[in-house]
């Protein structure tokens, strides 16, 4: 199972995402932002970091990278895509996911071990969890406050498109404690917390994050 990990200028957690894919049993494939065509991969991860230094708006420039044109096209026809932190920002900027990520309410960058509730366990990236499960993974961002118009938020809730929610404290002021959302078909997921940093007991607060990467292997086989 080949899972692509895109490196943009300023991507930082690409090595971590590749490691998580490997630990989950997949084969990580390095993808370069400037390439025109997406290699033959079964799913794509957009990693965390500060692509283009967060200049203009976080994720705005990366969303227009050459490779993103084919990612967007293939995602619209069902290619599983996971955007983590900056990757989530890129997906919102690329129009693949609704809403936007703005500066944290307290204006500080914040890194902490964060409790989340998995709201949807039937997306391409969360099938290894059970709905309602509590997991702990690191969160670290300066612009992670999820916002959308009230009507859009209502619609997301109605359609069950909130994938993970902050519990036991909201680290950045995200509306309705939203930590991650999914596309209507459940194939595209974006979240601010970092599951790729919770895949080994030695280096993470837990191994709760591994489920995102094992989920997609199953989802691809099933598809």
């Amino acid at each position, binding site marked *: 199972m080949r899972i692509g990990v895109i490196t943009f200028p300023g991507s930082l957690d690409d090595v971590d995402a590749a490691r998580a894919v490997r630990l989950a049993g997949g084969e990580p494939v390095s993808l370069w932002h400037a390439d025109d065509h997406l290699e033959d991969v079964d799913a794509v991860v957009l990693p965390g970091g500060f692509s283009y*230094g967060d200049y203009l708006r976080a994720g705005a420039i990366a969303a227009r990278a050459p490779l993103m044109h084919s990612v967007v096209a293939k995602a619209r026809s069902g290619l599983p895509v996971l955007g983590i932190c900056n990757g989530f920002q890129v997906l919102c900027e690329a129009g693949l996911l*609704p809403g936007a990520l703005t500066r944290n309410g307290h204006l500080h960058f914040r890194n*902490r071990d964060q409790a989340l509730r998995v709201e949807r366990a039937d997306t391409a990236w969360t099938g290894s969890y059970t709905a309602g499960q509590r997991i702990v993974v690191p969160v670290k961002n300066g612009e992670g406050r999820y916002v959308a118009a009230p009507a859009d938020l209502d619609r997301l809730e109605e359609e069950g498109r909130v994938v993970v929610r902050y519990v036991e404290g909201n680290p*950045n002021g995200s509306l309705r404690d939203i930590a991650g959302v999914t596309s209507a078909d459940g194939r595209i997921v974006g979240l601010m917390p970092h599951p790729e940093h919770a895949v080994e007991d030695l280096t993470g607060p837990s191994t709760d994050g591994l489920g995102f990467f094992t989920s997609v292997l199953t989802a691809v086989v099933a598809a």
Partner: protein
Amino acid sequence: MITVDTVERAVGTPDEPQPYTELGLKDDEYVRIRDILGRRPTTAELAMYSVMWSEHCSYKSSKVHLRQFGDLPRSEALLVGIGENAGVVDVGDGYAVTFKVESHNHPSYVEPYQGAATGVGGIVRDILTMGARPVAVMDSLRFGRADAPDTARVLPGVVAGVGGYGNCLGLPNIGGELSFDECYAGNPLVNALCVGVMRHEDLRLAKAEGAGNRVVLFGARTGGDGIGGVSVLASETFADAAEAGLSPAKRPSVQVGDPFTEKLLIEACLEIFAAGLVTGIQDLGGAGLSCATSELASAGTGGMHVDLDRVPLRDSTLTPAEILMSESQERMCAIVEPGKVDDFLAVCRRWDVQATVIGEVTDGDRLTVDWHGERIVDVPPRTVAHEGPVYERPVQRPADLDDLRADDPAALPRPTTGAELTAHWLAVVSSPDGADKTWVTEQYDRYVRGNTVLAQPDDAGVVRIDEDTHRGIALALDGNARYARLDPYAGAQLNLAEAYRNVAVSGARPLAVTNCLNFGSPEEPAVMWQFAEAVRGLADGCRELGLPVTGGNVSLYNQTGDVAINPTPVIGVLGVHDDVRRRVPSGWRAAGETVLLLGETRAEFGGSAWASVMHGHLGGRPPAVALPAEKALAALLAGLVGEGLVTSAHDLSDGGLAQALAESALRYGTGAALDLSAVAGDAFTALFSESGARAVVTTTDPGSVRVTADWAGVRVTELGTTGGDALRVADLPELPLAELRAAWTATLPALFGSPEVTVGSVPAGTVPTS
């Protein structure tokens, strides 16, 4: 049109007055430059000499003392010693590690965010220059009184700057220090450490060799920021606060950082190294192009020629002298064989890094610089880079030292009842120095790259360097200026011992030392005495512990008017873990484990946290230095961790056992029932003494620990058993962890702003209307 001051013109106008004093040069230094050149220097040459002969770059006051580090016995682990950008240490399996700590004190006071950010950027480039991939950073921060209004200006900016730069570079911050003292009110200390990892064969050195090889400048364009930073800011005493920080006059001397460009520079450099495309490389930091070109040429075998008008500029109005002095960040200079230039430039293009050939290595022994075809610099590079002035500054023991030492804390009123002891315990733990540092460390990414095994609040940062073999490194960065004020010789050794102990409690084997020596003005004999004593103490201490000093940094002129900071030697110790999976954390996880104190406790309160917090007192003698006991303790800890006999280990330092017990309990929320009566004659000494060479460990096998410790000659005192949700100490009121945690965590947010946010409120204009 400005007339360019060419060499030819300088020869013809020998008596033209030159602003050497404004550039920070003394009369005799100017005369020496004229002697070297046999004429007056051109404006551009004067600029180069002024920045390179500054205290910051030339170490002219400290050099005679620092030689002691070079005289230490050679360690087998040392691959590259003092003199290069950073020392390099063999950590086994073909891996080498390079690490260094550097100050960015003065810029951080003038412009906290950019000053601190570019401090991180600068030390990261030093590590990169050695051929290593930077893998982690640490920061040691000192500010004026925590409740002083100016601290509220400086601290948040510094923390945001350290975080903003390091986070955007993708380097985990694995620990450091935060401390407050009145003496830093006008001189905050911002010391940043970076550590990098490479294979032995990847080692690079900064020298220009091979006539015809090209000089390539790459990275950011050169701008007007940071001109004269090393000479104007770092090598002078500010007359008063207004001169330094509150007037904008010096702000242009502070560089402005762009971590995104530096991230690209790192990746491009590592690709260039891997492809073998450079013969020498140097980063541009303090003194910019003046430093990089003269150091590369000086360390090589030939000369160098540079066409300065080829340097890409952000500001086309810059003069040649300004271009030579600019400290614009995120720039590197490489020496590349002509046949490899195209490949070199291709890698830079791939990473969107601008690269320009600006000159070449020559046969001669001169560094020459042209500006639109006219010669504006023609100097022997060694005289700029390596043969600057050297001073034997006068030293004199401070006049107030005897009175200070005579003012023994034994005379201070002590708590006697259980309730008083507990009140003092809470006060020490919740003091700004003792309190929870989460307000700061939450702003730093500690997870990126996925190899952080331990980070703050554990005693040492531990980073895995090989995912297959589990080899890793441990780092600690420590300083205690109160001890150094009372006795700089002993203080430097106590700081060394603390960093050494912190590395040892993680289970690592200490290997090498770096240092950042922060002192007042070298022109004051009392300060110079403190400096000389601290260096001698550190050198003697390293000799006794068998550790090499791999490099370091000196920051002088940390004073406002006549008042110098307390002497502050900050010491970094690097250790190696053969298997990071064996590391032990500092906190207690499980109930029912035996708590043991390792080491001797004597009644030692000079310079202690208790005396400072409860009485605002600094006097007497610091704790006795006991390096043989430190060695025995470190060896014992390595053995205990290696055999899996301990489940946690925490070093005792500031705040003594009181601080250590609180931190161990709060780490994972596990209390303990303890009896301290066997530690010392009284509970006060047991709790607040700061005797060195001690650690608290927990174990499920106290018998085996005891046997091992007896064999190592380390005293073991059983304190009690872990469990419960309080610290229950015999004869003291029960201290619930909830109460302890509330006091411990409240301090910094109360001073610098609550980290909590109101959930759900949307400021106008932030809602997208899709």
